[in-house]
């Protein structure tokens, strides 16, 4: 890759603009020497990232319908939306995998203890109100 070909496709909003996350690409200059060039990103990579996210989004929307139909609890929807798995959530909260699985059903979610609710919300980095609703 040549220095002039280094892509600069920045597409993601950075929460802390001061940090300025950047890629650093190694590219050849005209004399065939390697130079370091900061790069803001590359379209194919950004598309791959967006594609995996939008896929999760679609999956979450399908689950949302099931939640409205009373098949799953809001926990299931948030788990898919936030790219969590039962195992990782169980590790973060200290609850068992079986317990998380149970809480994905509306019947059990209705009788959840406030302590458990708080722990799950904390692990997902959302508020308790967000966790109990599907908006």
């Amino acid at each position, binding site marked *: *890759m040549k220095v002039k070909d280094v892509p600069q496709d920045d597409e993601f909003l950075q929460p802390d603009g001061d940090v300025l996350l*950047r*890629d650093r690409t*190694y590219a050849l200059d005209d004399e065939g020497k*390697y130079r370091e060039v900061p790069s803001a990103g590359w*379209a194919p990579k950004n*598309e*791959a990232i967006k594609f995996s996210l939008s896929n999760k989004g679609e999956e979450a929307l399908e689950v949302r319908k099931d939640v409205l139909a009373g098949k799953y609890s809001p926990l299931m929807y948030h788990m898919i939306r936030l790219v969590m798995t039962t195992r990782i959530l169980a590790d973060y909260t200290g609850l068992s995998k079986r317990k998380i699985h149970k809480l994905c059903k509306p019947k059990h979610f209705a009788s959840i203890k406030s302590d458990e609710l708080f722990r799950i919300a904390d692990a997902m980095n959302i508020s308790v109100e967000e966790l109990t609703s599907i908006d």
Partner: protein
Amino acid sequence: MEINFEHRHAAHCENGVVRNLLNFYGIKLSEPMILGLGSGIFFSHMPFYRLNGMAMTSFRPFPGSIFSRVTHALGIEVQWHKFKDPDKAMAKLDEVLAQGTPVGLRVGVYHLAYFPKEYRMHFNAHNLCVIGKEGDEYIISDPIGMNKNRLSAENLKKVRFAKGNTPPEGRMYYIKSTEHYKPLNAHMLNRAVLKTCSDMLGIPFPMFGAKGIAYLAKRMRKWERLYGERGAAMNLAQVIRMLEEIGTGGAGFRFMYAAFLQEASEFLNKPEWNQLSMELTEVGDLWRDFSYHAARFFKKREGIILSYDDIADKLEIISARETEVFRKLENSVKRGY
């Protein structure tokens, strides 16, 4: 309190942390040199090891190995810690910081506050350096950011104890003494290059090293049949993310390793390594071509959309080219041509 630490931006987090830490102790090495000395280029595709539900493809050796190999080669003494209790982990960090020692940490990025949400996956091998503390905030030098930044103690504790595959378990490392430091020499470089070549050529399983790329190609041909159209595209997206995600210096470290070969060829006065560097650059360009065509599966643009068979063919060519490059490199060290 902030340690007088020069923050420098780097392509790869682990190389960057190692480079900046060594720089703090007056050892000046470039980032490609760290990558080369640490034998930080690799390939593996492991369908039995899942990351986010998809087969794991990796372009780097196991996290932490670059730091160990570089410091071992240079004769620098280091200290590692691993914790069960988050409070003890933070207390130890404060204790070491108070002595004026910059500390490297391994963290997970899922909860890392300054990352855009698109980058936040369950990836637990990110490295950063803590260089100071003010009140309840830590001053962080993250090599993939252009500037220094701050992180609250609460957030730092959370990312240090991230969960998922290969949890960091609060791992921290720092340089204990540079008493037995040996400056860079030809022997070290030859050893590191031989290690890289044996990783890329000598592991007797199909999924590792240069032949692993052909293995990935073989699997790729089956993806549509195994996972359906969407599942196959998800798997392909995973490969592209691993290949080009922030921190590879472009094309899964291939360009950075080529830069190392060029630097080493000047250092050792070996023009044939510069030639190999150019060949590896061509391989890097082939990788970029692969990503470019693969990305068309996600966003339908104008032009021809290739099939999985076609992009698998590209990978097979890359596999053959990489085998050739590393074979030549190995011969140049072992037999002198």
